[in-house]
Structures are given as C-alpha cells and as structure tokens.
C-alpha cells in the first residue's frame, strides 16, 4: 500500500486516520516505558500521595542509590556480567567454525544441524531443565556460575549459529576462490578475506548472545539458589515479592538499571539485526 498508488481522495481521508493509528501505537508501546522512568524518579511520598502528579515534582537519583544499596544490585550485576560475557565468548568461538561449515559445505550434517536448530525451539524448557539439573548436580555444577554458563552456551548456540551462517553465506564464495588461486592457504583466506567482511555480523551475533544471557531468567531460577550467585533478573524478581508500596520507586529504578546494558547493545545492533531479518525474508 504505497502512497503513490493511492488516489488523492482516499489519501485525504486516510492520512489523518493513519496518523491517529500511529499515535495509538506510540502510546501503547511508549507509555509503560515513560511511566517506568517517571516512577524511578519519584519520592516515596509522591508515589503514595492521594493526588499523584504525573511528572515527579522533585526528580532525583535517591531511588537508584537506595536500590543499589539495598538489593545488592552491583553484586548481582557482576554475576550477570560474568555469565553473559563468558557465554558470549564461548559461543562465538565455537559457533564460528561450525557456522562456516554450515554455510559453505553441503554435507548431511547441514540438514541435521538445521533440523536441530528448529527443533530446539519447539521443546519446552521443562523437558530439558529437569535432566540437565540432575546431570549438573552430579558433576557439582548446580548453584555455580560455571553451570549457568554451560547451559546458556548450549541454549544460545542454535540462534547464534543460524545468524552467523546467514552472514557467512552472504559473503561471495568467489572471494575465497580468488584467494585460493593466488595461492593463499585456507587459514589465511579465512583470516584476511572472510573475517574482516564478517566482522559486523560477528559483532551483531555476539551482542545478541550477550543480551540473551543478560536477560535470561528461567534457567537461572532453577539452577541458582545461593543468594550470592544470583544474577540480575533473579534479584529483581525477588525484589518484586518484597515490594511495599513505598519501594515502587526503587523497584522501577533497579529495573531501569538492569535494562541499560542490553538496551545499549541492542541499539548498536538493531539495524544489522533487522536488515539480517530482511534479507532472510526477501530470499525466503
């Protein structure tokens, strides 16, 4: 429905309605975010006042300071950081060669791997987590960040593989062949020709893996019981249970802080992520 193919009359009627609909979407999508931000800057008195104002009358960072203090946010953020970064590094290292093989070699393995990537989406986590819990318990990796890293690695691998092989497939094979004709070794071809071209896709995949690890809740809930090892989502969820009305502001502040890293990374990769989806969709 491009505007060029719309008659002027329809356009005159349709335009205001379209803007109205767009405004509706902006409110639905944006208002909860705005409210979260505003709540984080309100004082406890303001939050429970019978005549609440929409905007904070005296915006300050008290809630943030108190949330960090009380809920042990820094420690939890540290745990989350360790887990998300380790997962990202491991996933990137092991998925890179596999993605290359998937994209470039036509073997039976390709079909199997693709099937697994899709299948891994269908099975409910509960089926995987129970035996995984038992296995990890046997080798002493329940209640350990290492165990969590292991689980996250396996769990984010399918998607990372899928993304990466797409980016690799987008690099013309002819470039490699040209390199080979010039007598460069395979490793050299990969390092000098493929890697630089792949860099943006690699960054996007890594950041996406990081975000998944940083945001994950279910596996952490099952595998981590020791409060000292809690990741950020766990700490936040526990905070919810204990919320008094007065602490709403702190809850909002803590939530905002927890969102910043993934939001920041997402802002970096979103163009690439959406264009990747786009190319996949167009070809499909």
């Amino acid at each position, binding site marked *: 429905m491009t505007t060029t193919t719309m008659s002027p009359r329809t356009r005159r009627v349709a335009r205001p309605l379209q803007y109205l609909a767009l405004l509706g979407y902006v409110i639905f999508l944006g208002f909860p975010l705005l409210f979260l931000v505003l709540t984080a800057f309100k004082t406890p008195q303001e939050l429970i006042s019978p005549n609440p104002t929409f905007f904070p009358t005296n915006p300050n960072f008290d809630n943030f300071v108190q949330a960090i203090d009380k809920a042990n946010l820094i420690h939890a953020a540290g745990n989350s950081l360790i887990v998300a970064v380790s997962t990202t590094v491991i996933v990137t290292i*092991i998925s890179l060669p596999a993605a290359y093989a998937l994209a470039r070699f036509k073997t039976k393995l390709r079909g199997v791997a693709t099937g697994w990537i899709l299948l891994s989406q269908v099975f409910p986590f509960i089926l995987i987590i129970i035996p995984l819990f038992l296995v990890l318990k046997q080798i002493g990796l329940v209640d350990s960040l290492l165990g969590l890293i292991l689980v996250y690695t396996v769990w984010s691998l399918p998607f990372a593989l899928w993304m990466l092989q797409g980016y690799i497939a987008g690099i013309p094979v002819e470039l490699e062949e040209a390199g080979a004709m010039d007598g460069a070794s395979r490793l050299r071809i990969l390092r000098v020709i493929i890697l630089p071209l792949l860099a943006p896709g690699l960054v996007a995949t890594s950041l996406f893996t990081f975000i998944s690890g940083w945001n994950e809740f279910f596996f952490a809930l099952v595998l981590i019981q020791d409060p000292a090892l809690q990741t950020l989502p766990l700490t936040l969820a526990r905070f919810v249970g204990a919320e008094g009305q007065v602490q709403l502001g702190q809850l909002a502040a803590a939530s905002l802080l927890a969102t910043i890293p*993934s939001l920041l990374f997402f802002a970096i990769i979103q163009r690439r992520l959406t264009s990747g989806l786009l190319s996949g969709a167009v070809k499909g």
Partner: protein
Amino acid sequence: MTLTETPLAASPPSKTPKPSKPRRRSKQGRDAWLLMLPALVPVVLFSVYPLAQGILLGFTDAEAGLNVTTNFNGAENYQKLAGNELFWNSFRIGLVWAFGVTILQFLASLGLALLLNLDLRFRWIARTLALVPWAMPPVVIAIMWRLMLNPTYGPINEGMRAVGLPGDINWLGDFSTALPAVIVVGVWAGMPQTTITLLAGLQSVPTDLHEAAAIDGAGVWQRFWHVTLPALRPIIIAITTLDLIWNFNSFALVYVLTAGGPGGQTMLPMLFAYNEAFRYGNFGYAAAMGNVMVVVIAVFLFVYLRGQARSRLS
C-alpha cells in the same frame, strides 16, 4: 529468524575433472565434521542427551532427593495426568494464552508494520519504540506492567478514574481480568519480532504488482487482500508458527506478573510443570507434562502447517 530456509551459497563448484570428485567430497565431509565438533560436543552433552533423558524421565517415577531409586512406570504418569483436572485446566489456560497472544500480536503487528511501511512523518518514533521490548529482560517487562496495573497507584486505574469509570480494578488479582491483562502484556512484549519480520516482508512486496492492480481499478482494501496478503503469506506462516511456540513455552513474564495466580487463573503449563518439578520434587511427573506439551504443540503445528500448505496448492 524465519522458518523459511535461506538459500545458501552453493559450495565451491569443483573445478577438478569428474574422477576426483568423490575424494574431494569425503574430504569436505571430514572438514565439516572437524569444524562442527566444538559446537557439536556441548550440544550433544548438554542438549541432545538431556532432552532424550527428559523424554524418558516422563515414563518414570523420578523424584528429587538423595538415594531415591527411579523406576520405569510405563504409562502410569499419563493415567494420573489424564485425571488431573488442575493440569488440564492449566493446559486450557496455556492454549488461551498462546493463541490469544499470537493472534492479537499478529494483528497488532501487521497494523503497525503497514503504518511503518507508509511514508508517514514521525514513524521512526514508533519504529524505535516497537523495538525496545526486544531488548528488555522479561523480568523487567513484568515489573513495569505490575506498576502500570497496580490497583491503587497504577496509571491505568487512575486514567479510568479520571474519566469517571470505576478505577479500582485489581487487574492482576481478579479472577476475570487476570488472564486478559496478562495476555495484553504478552502482546506488548512480543511485538518487536513480529512487527519487524512483517515489515521486512512488506518491503519485499513488489510495487509494480500494486501499481498494476491499481490500474485495474482495485481499491486499497482489495489490493491489501489480493496482493499484499498473498505475497506476505510465507512470512506470516513462519512468524505466527514461531510466536505460537515461543508463547506456549514462555515462563518469566507470567511468573513475575502473577506467579500463576489468582487461584491458578494464569497458571500456564510451564509454570505448572515448574512447580511440580522444583517445588514438589516430582521430576518424572513433571517430565510427563512436558511430553504432553510437546505432543500437543506438535499436533497443532502439523495441522496448521499442513492446512497452509494445502490451501497454497489449491
């Protein structure tokens, strides 16, 4: 990610004459294995093996705790499940949730994608906002909506009071409103992937098709129905299928929003199975629930995808 398979660049065309081809292929196969090995080992150890084990566990009486012997008990779990009204109730809720969220998400996202595909001013605001939930931890989304829906201080009730409606609804705590409220949050949380995928699809619909239809006198609505929708079809099928699976298996959002309450009104099957396994320690029974969930979702997908494939052929 879409279900439609991206055609991949063909493997390097072999320039060597025919006789040496088999050898080359087997070498390629070996290389592929070697390259995949680092990824394959953890996947097999911590994903394939547990999954197989999990399916098997569903046929045992496994329980949490030390020194508990586990025995196969055949179909006993499933006989017990068949008579477990709470589980089927949770299953029903899970289906309402999964289909409700998926359908509403699809309609809302299609509308937004159509708007974003137009040449509207300020559309970048909506586009940016539509992406944000993707980056947010589900736990934070749930906390945010708890603030929104708070019966006393939440802006939704306040807004209703301001226009003279009864603004004292306990959205997440009331039997009649809890599930609808949770579904709305589910739609909000899942809009990015659906919108962006549909938008990508819309941008790939050839404009000359639209122009041709317009010249033939087709109205906006007719063009949408007869040109846009058919062209979008593969993408719609792929994204709704994925959404359905994701929603049926989702956990964190509802766990933090309501923990399954009030009175089990939002007890999704995943939450139910989680409680069974990690609160009551009935591992075998919970795994059996997981098996039932897989079978049901597989049947739905089979029927849906086959139906789509058939109507496409006809």
